[in-house]
């Protein structure tokens, strides 16, 4: 039981740190609220959807931006999608990076776009790692027989 409590605290601390460091925002909380008995793995499901989608988008973006003639419309559409999905799961740092990215996109600034792409990727991998860690913690907790504490 002590282990469960410790795990719970650890999870709580970790989650709080994610919020404090602005990796996540209220939208994630809302997601968590939407999760209930009927959709027990809702958050994980959505987040993995996000990962898949984002990975695809990022790959696409990399390919598009490495082309000789950059199709900025396409890039913009991709970034817009990424922005939408990241804001939906509350990955606000990715979202912010996307906003900067779009500005460069409007200016048709290839260099800036590439820089931003790197930034977005960084943020994406960061948040991905964080979320994966979070889920791992949750899984451990569930395995230990505890319940996931709500914010």
């Amino acid at each position, binding site marked *: 039981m002590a282990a469960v409590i410790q795990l719970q605290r650890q999870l709580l601390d970790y989650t709080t740190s994610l919020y404090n460091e602005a990796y996540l925002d209220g939208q994630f909380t809302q997601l968590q609220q*939407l999760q209930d008995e009927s959709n027990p793995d809702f958050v994980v499901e959505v987040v993995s959807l996000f990962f898949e989608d984002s990975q695809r988008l990022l790959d696409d973006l990399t390919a598009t931006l490495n082309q000789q003639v950059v199709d900025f419309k396409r890039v913009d559409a991709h970034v817009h999608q990424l922005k*939408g999905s990241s804001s939906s799961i509350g990955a606000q740092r990715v979202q912010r990076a996307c*906003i900067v990215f779009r500005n460069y996109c409007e200016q048709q600034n290839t260099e800036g776009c590439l820089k931003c792409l790197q930034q977005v990727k960084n943020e994406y991998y960061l948040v991905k790692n964080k979320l994966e860690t979070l889920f791992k913690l949750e899984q451990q907790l569930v395995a230990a027989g505890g319940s996931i504490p709500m914010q």
Partner: protein
Amino acid sequence: MGSLLRKISIKYPSFAEYWRTNRRSPQNRRIFCRDAEHGDFHCANAECLSSYYSVFVARLAIMAMLAILIGLLTLLTWHFTKVYTNKSLETLAYGLRYELLQRPILRMWNIFNSTVEITTAQVKLSEFLIKKYGKPVNQAEQVELYQAMKDVTWALFASHKALKSITMNYKNGFVQAFHRDHRSNNTFYIYSDLVNYSISGSYDMNMLSAHRGWNDQSVHNNISAIWFREPLDPLTGEKTGKAMPIPPDDLINIAGISQVPDGVASWHVAVSKYSDSPLLSAALPVLDSSKQKSIVAVVGVTTALYSVGQLMKELVEFHTGHIYLTSREGWLLSTSTDTPLLMNSTTGPKLMMAADSEDVVIRSGAKLLQKSYGSDTPANHTVHIKDAKLGNQLYYIDSFILNLRRLPMVGVIIIPRKYIMGKVDRKAKKTLVILISASLSVLVTGCVFIFILTNGVSKEMKLRAELISHLDARRKAEASSNYKSQFLANMSHELRTPMAAVIGLLDILMCDDCLTNEQYSTITQIRRCSTALLRLLNNILDLSKVESGKLVLELAEFNLEQELEGLVDMFSVQCINHKVEIFLDLSDDIPKLIQGDSGRVVQIFANLISNSIKFTTSGYIVLRGWCQNPNTSRNARQSSFAQTNSISPNKTHDENFYKKDNRLILCFEVDDTGCGIDPSKWESVFESFEQADPSTTRLHGGTGLGLCIVRTLVNQMGGEIKFVNKSGPGSLMQLYLLLRAPIDGTTEHYKLNFPEHNLTVLLALGGKMGRLIMSSWLQQHGISTYEACDWNELTSILQELFQDGSYIQNLPNHSSIAEKHNTGDTRTSTFIIVIDIVLLNLSTGIWKEQISFLDRYRGRAKFAWILNHDTSSNIKKELSKKGHLLMVNRPLYKTKMIQIIESAIRDSELQTKINPLISTVVDREMHECLEMGPIQSEGKLEGNHNTSDGFEKNSSKPFLSPYAAVNNCFVELTEVHSDKNDLRRREQDQRGTSNDIQCLTSSNTRGSQTSLQGLRILLAEDTPVLQRVATIMLEKLGAEVVAVGDGLQVVNALHFVPKPDKYQEDSPQADENPGSQTEESCFSTYDLILMDCQMPKMDGYEATKAIRRSEIGTTWHIPIVALTAHAMSSDEAKCLEVGMDAYLTKPIDRKLMVSTILSLTRRTTI
């Protein structure tokens, strides 16, 4: 001139460089300017400075050019004038000199000629005489011959005065000579002693040749010979004195045989002891007539050159200068001066060289000639030396040669330059001085002019530089303002999202059942603050939108009166705390429906009223409105308020325009009794972040954005807003708006026909202003009114009207009071008493007695109560218990009054005509509706809906009243009303209170988790994450969700619903209405579409357009809600333009989504 310039530019390469750079520099600057449009301006100052220097250099260069030009001009002028004058003068002078010299030479020539002639004549005569006398044989004959010779010689000598002497030297050594001394004017005859000579001289040639040396010696050195001199009378030749013996050769030169060695004439220049000038002596032999041609005698003639000198002197006296003649060797023969020509030496006087002359000028001139030409004189000996410097003066020296045989002569004339050129030289100097001074003055003036002219240019340059810097500053300012707008636009999303989250989370919290009351109130407070913050944000965003020109006014029909009443209702709640009453006073000529942006119009008034409330602590706030349609004259009542200072647009000019375009000018006044605004601040308060008194921020809060937004909105609607003078305390603000009347022209104002009901209204209202407004309006419509301001007045009026019991009996058959006022028609008279609740003494228990007092009049009059918002429910209960069912909330305005009157009339009609039982039922229901206030609404939502529906059915159907819409204003504040067009979300946000309530109720609804129960929603979203989130969210709320990935699928889903397989694949619940396969039913399978705007294949806009197109011709209209990540109103406008019904921003705010969906679906389901 061009070549001159080129020369100059070669000479001064640096100057040319300047010139070139200067000429290029303006171009450079222009290019620079163009660049500067894009680039930065940091070097502008440096450029300015350098241009300053370049102006300076250019100025200097131009001045230097001018100086050079003028100098050259001067020099040229001077040069040409001088050279040509000099040349012509020189030619003249040369002629003169030549002429001058020619004359002495001619004289000399004459002298020579005459000398030669005389000599020749003498010789011829001698030859004749000698021949005649033949060979003298004796002394006598000899003497005779000599005598004859003497006579002949005398004749010749006398005839030629210029002759100095004539000598005859005979072979035998006898000498005969005549001599004339010019100085003493004496004439002498000189002869040798005859004794010493043999008569028989050997005349043969041999002897002659043998004795030649001897003979000569005999003439000159014969010491033994004695010569005699005999003075003669110069004229007659008579002997005047005694002959005196003299030594030979003492006086004259006797030409001897040696001088004529070859028997031809010879001449030479000789000197004599007694003459100071050289003599010209000629010698000619007298030949024997015999064959041998031996010389028998030699004739010598000497002439003094004195006369030549004389002539020269005359010439020189007239002209100036010096003339002299020399022999070829340089011996001086004659000069124009008086200096001696001979030099004394030991051997007697001798000729002197010209270079040794005592006259300085001649000496130096001769020396110069000698020096320059040396011995080898030019062939013709003609020399012209100009500007020879002798002593301190310049001279012209010319020499000519007189080439006589045996005696070539050289004439030299020395004339001082001063004589010929003196005046010219002086004039030239003067001219030069004048020219130089003139050119200097021209130069100075030119420089001054250049300075003045270029000064203007440099000023212009300075100004231009300033202009450039100003442009730069302006550009920067514009850029920064642009950045600001952009920043705000970007921030709008970022700011609103957290705020929406905060508010949403608070809503969730408030739904929580386990909150204590304190917590609940705290949360309510937080929510209110958040809403306020959101409102502020919206204000700022509005402002930035207006500034960046992104604000687009929509054009939709709306009911202005209704909107304003809602507004006043809302603010009246706030006013209670301030002890301020708020009134709405709209004139009847305002059309019911108006086209415009209702949200913005309401925003204007909301801002104005909230502003007034903020600064008004007691008194009233009146919102007046009237229509200033050019074709309907303004109401007299309103004009009395505003005639003095009304804003009147250019009526006559625009009349046709407004008429044609269906435009209306709506004038409004917001009149309050607050602290007022100083007239000096009337303009500045409309600036953003500006408040009349900075200290008010502390007192009242606020950012000073409200009025700024108002003004921009008003201006955008083609109106104008300003403060006007007000007599009392407070401020009076007037504005007018240009709005359109509906195009179909349904602007008819409802015509009230109250007079036929014969109404009397007793207004027992606390506020004076409200009473005044209401009574004047009622009177306008032919309703007689009484006014009472407090309880006592009310009772006295009541008692006066219903004096005694007798009246009570009369009541069923309708009152005498009606008879009083309407003499003709007493049948339908109705008495209405409108009582303000504040008239009751609520602090003590007296109010119950007061109510029971009024109860006495119940049968005779209809009571309508004006309640406060905070009127406690037990009072209400008490009132309804007593049968006072007509209750309305403060404030009382036109529509509510109409409502009261309507119900009263209906009541009385029902009472008289129909079964009273039914009437009470209707009454009850209606009353319940009427008494509804925001406070009581909680927890009674369902009931409310029912009643309001019921009311609508019951009230509107039997009467078909034009006031059916009035219901809205009662219900609006209490719930999420189904009829309310929820497109105006923002507007509702600003109505803080109403929003509060609304959210409260909606969260109540949500509490059941199934607020969207039974709704079928088609979700179009391409991002899987969002799709999933939204699906879950909606499903949790009880809705059935079908998610598709793009617009094309949406269109297909709607169109191919009838195909069961595809349909089922998407949503298993689709079997709900399997039977209906008609066109209409296929649309009805979904209650709503949530549409993302940016999607692959077909975006939301396109999909919506397609759907709306397919709906044409059907009665269906499926609600489409846009989901977009953009938060600008332009996006919103675009969404609405393509036919969407509402607009939600991502990330999805649950509350907002629910309310939006509900409002849209309810409309279609009901």
